[in-house]
C-alpha cells in the first residue's frame, strides 16, 4: 500500500514525488513511456543530443532572488539555484510586418522598445504592466476575464496588442483566440518581466536532478508502467491497475495524465469525461543541426516569435500546419560559459492533430519532409537563411506529442478549462500538471508541488 501513487514522470509528477518522499510518504511514480519527461524530454539521435518540448525556462530571476516562482520551487524542492545551472537568454524578439520588438531578462528593454516603436502607447504599456504586477495569481477571481478585452482596453494600437499576445499564447495558451486575464498576467510576468534561460546541458539536466532527488529520498519510479484502470468503489479509487495487469493500492492518487485522460481511466463511468472539451492546440517542430553557431550566420536572437500579417491567429489550422506564424529558437543563443557542441535551430508551428493522424505511414513520412521545408522557408523570412549550413535534421509532429505525453490531440497545453484546485469527483484522486492550470517547465513543477502540498501533505499534517 502506497501513501501516494503519481501518474506520469514529467516535471509535475517528479516534483510532487519529491515533496511527498521528502516528508516520508511511500510514493510510486508510474510512467507509461520508457523514459521520463513527458512533454519535456530529450533523446539521442545519430550521435547528437536533442531536447524536445519547451525551448527555455521562464521566470528566470537572478541567483539570490528570494521571491517569484523559481525561488519558491527551489526552496520547496530543497534544490540550489546552481543545481539547474541556468544561463540567461541573450535576447529575444517579436517580429511582425513592419515592426520588431526586442526583449531580454531586463524588463526595461521591452518597455524601451515599445516606447520607440509605438511612442503613443508607452504610457499605456506602463499601465498594463502595473495592472499585471498587481494581479494576484493566488486568487482565482479574475480567471475568467478575457485578456483580449482587458489588454485591448488599455493598449489602443491593435498591432502592439497582437505582438504582445503572440509569445504568450505560443508559450502557454490552451485556449484558441484568447487567453484568460489571469493566465495572460502570469505569462506576461514569467516571460517579459522575469525572463528566459536554459541549462547548458538542456532539459535533461533538470529532469536528472529531479529523478535523482526523488530516488535518493526513497521514491519508487516504474517506467513502462502505463495505467489501464483506476478501480473506483464509492467515492474513492481503491486500486490502480497497470497495463501488465499488476494491481497497486494507494491512499491517494495524483494524476498528471490530463483531465479527460484521467477521467477515462476511472471505471465508474462518471460523465465528467464529456463535460470538458479536450485541447486542440498542438505543434510541429523542426530541428536543424548546423555546422556553425547561428551567431556566425548573423543570428544572435535566443527566441524569435514571428507572424507574417497584422493579426495573430491562434487556432487549430485547417491544413496540416499553419506557417504564417512560428517560434524560432536557437539553444546556442544563451549566455553560457562555454559554447554548445553544435549549432541548432528549432522552429515551432501550429499543427492539426487530426490531419496528421489520418495519414498512412508513407504519406506521413512524405508530409513530414514537405512541412519541414515549408516551416523552414517561412521562418527564414525573419532570420538569416541557414539552410546551406544544415548537417542533420529531425522533426516531430502532433502524433509524436501524443506518443510521448499521452495527451488527447497532442494538446501541448492541455484542455482550455483548467481544474485550478486539482480536485475530481473522487475523494482521493487529484490532478496536477498541465490540466491543473500551470504550464511550462516552471509552471508544471509548481503545479506538482502545489497539488502535493494541498492534497497529500496538508491534510495529513495533523493525522
Amino acid at each position, binding site marked *: 500500500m502506497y501513501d501516494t501513487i503519481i501518474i506520469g514522470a514529467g516535471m509535475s509528477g517528479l516534483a510532487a514525488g519529491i515533496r511527498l518522499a521528502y*516528508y516520508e510518504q511511500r510514493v510510486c511514480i508510474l510512467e507509461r513511456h520508457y523514459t521520463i519527461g513527458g512533454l519535456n524530454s530529450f533523446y539521442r539521435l545519430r550521435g547528437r543530443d536533442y531536447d524536445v518540448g519547451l525551448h527555455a525556462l521562464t521566470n528566470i530571476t537572478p541567483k539570490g532572488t*528570494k521571491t517569484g516562482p523559481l525561488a519558491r520551487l527551489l*526552496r*520547496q524542492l530543497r534544490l540550489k539555484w546552481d543545481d539547474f545551472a541556468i544561463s540567461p537568454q541573450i535576447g529575444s524578439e517579436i517580429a511582425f510586418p513592419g515592426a520588431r520588438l526586442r526583449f531580454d531578462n531586463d524588463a526595461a528593454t521591452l518597455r524601451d522598445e515599445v516606447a520607440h516603436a509605438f511612442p503613443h502607447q508607452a504610457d499605456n504599456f506602463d499601465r498594463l504592466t502595473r495592472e499585471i504586477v498587481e494581479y494576484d495569481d493566488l486568487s482565482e477571481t479574475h480567471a475568467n476575464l478575457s485578456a483580449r478585452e482587458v489588454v485591448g482596453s488599455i493598449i489602443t494600437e491593435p498591432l502592439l496588442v497582437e505582438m504582445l499576445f503572440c509569445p504568450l499564447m505560443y508559450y502557454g495558451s490552451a485556449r484558441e483566440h484568447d487567453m484568460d486575464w489571469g493566465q495572460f498576467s502570469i505569462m506576461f510576468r514569467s516571460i517579459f518581466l522575469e525572463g528566459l534561460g536554459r541549462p547548458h546541458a538542456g532539459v535533461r539536466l533538470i529532469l536528472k536532478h529531479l529523478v535523482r532527488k526523488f530516488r535518493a529520498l526513497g521514491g519508487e519510479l516504474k517506467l513502462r508502467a502505463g495505467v489501464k484502470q483506476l478501480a473506483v468503489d464509492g467515492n474513492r479509487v481503491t486500486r490502480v491497475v497497470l497495463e501488465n495487469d499488476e494491481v497497486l493500492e494507494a491512499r491517494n492518487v495524483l494524476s498528471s495524465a490530463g483531465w479527460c485522460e484521467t477521467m477515462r481511466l476511472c471505471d465508474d463511468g462518471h460523465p465528467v469525461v464529456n463535460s470538458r472539451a479536450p485541447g486542440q492546440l498542438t505543434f510541429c517542430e523542426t530541428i536543424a543541426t548546423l555546422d556553425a553557431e547561428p551567431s556566425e550566420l548573423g543570428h544572435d536572437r535566443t527566441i524569435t516569435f514571428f507572424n507574417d500579417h497584422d493579426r495573430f491567429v491562434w487556432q487549430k489550422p485547417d491544413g496540416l500546419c499553419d506557417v504564417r506564424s512560428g517560434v524560432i529558437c536557437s539553444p546556442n543563443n544563451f549566455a553560457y560559459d562555454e559554447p554548445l557542441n553544435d549549432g541548432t535551430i528549432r522552429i515551432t508551428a501550429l499543427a492539426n492533430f487530426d490531419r496528421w493522424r489520418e495519414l498512412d505511414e508513407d504519406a506521413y513520412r512524405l508530409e513530414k519532409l514537405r512541412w519541414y521545408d515549408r516551416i523552414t522557408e517561412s521562418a527564414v523570412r525573419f532570420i538569416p537563411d541557414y539552410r546551406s549550413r544544415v548537417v542533420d535534421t529531425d522533426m516531430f509532429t502532433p502524433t509524436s506529442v501524443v506518443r510521448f505525453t499521452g495527451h488527447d490531440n497532442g494538446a501541448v497545453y492541455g484542455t482550455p478549462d483548467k481544474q485550478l484546485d486539482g480536485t475530481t469527483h473522487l475523494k482521493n484522486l487529484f490532478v496536477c500538471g498541465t490540466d491543473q492550470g500551470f504550464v511550462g517547465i516552471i509552471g508544471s513543477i509548481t503545479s506538482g508541488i502545489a497539488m502535493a502540498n494541498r492534497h497529500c501533505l*496538508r491534510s495529513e499534517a*495533523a493525522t
Partner: protein
Amino acid sequence: MRNRPVFRLPVLQILLSCQCLIGKENPGMTSADIREEVLDILKDIAPDEDLTQLDDDKRFREQLELDSMDFLDIVMELRKRHRVQIPEDDYINLASMNSTVTYLEPLMKDIEREKV
C-alpha cells in the same frame, strides 16, 4: 525585550543543557531548545535568509520572504523531526518566533532533546 545578540545563544544553551543533564533524568526541550530547532528548520527552508537579525516578536512574514508553502514546511518539518502534530486551525500560532515557541512548548516538553 528580545532582539538579544544571537552569538550568545550557544553559551546559554550549553549552560542550560548542563543544568538539565545534571538536574533531570529525562530532559525535555526547553523554550531555548525549541527556538534553536525552529531556527534550524527556517535555515533549511530558506537557506538564503539571514536569520541573525530575526526579531522574535515580529511576524516571520514581515521579516522573511516566506509564503504559505513555506509555512506548511515548518509544520511538516516539526512532524518529520519530532512527530509533533499541528492541526490546520493552529497554523495561526506559527506567526512569529515567540508565538511559535509558546505554542510548541507544551507539545514538545516531553520530547527528549537530541544528545549534545
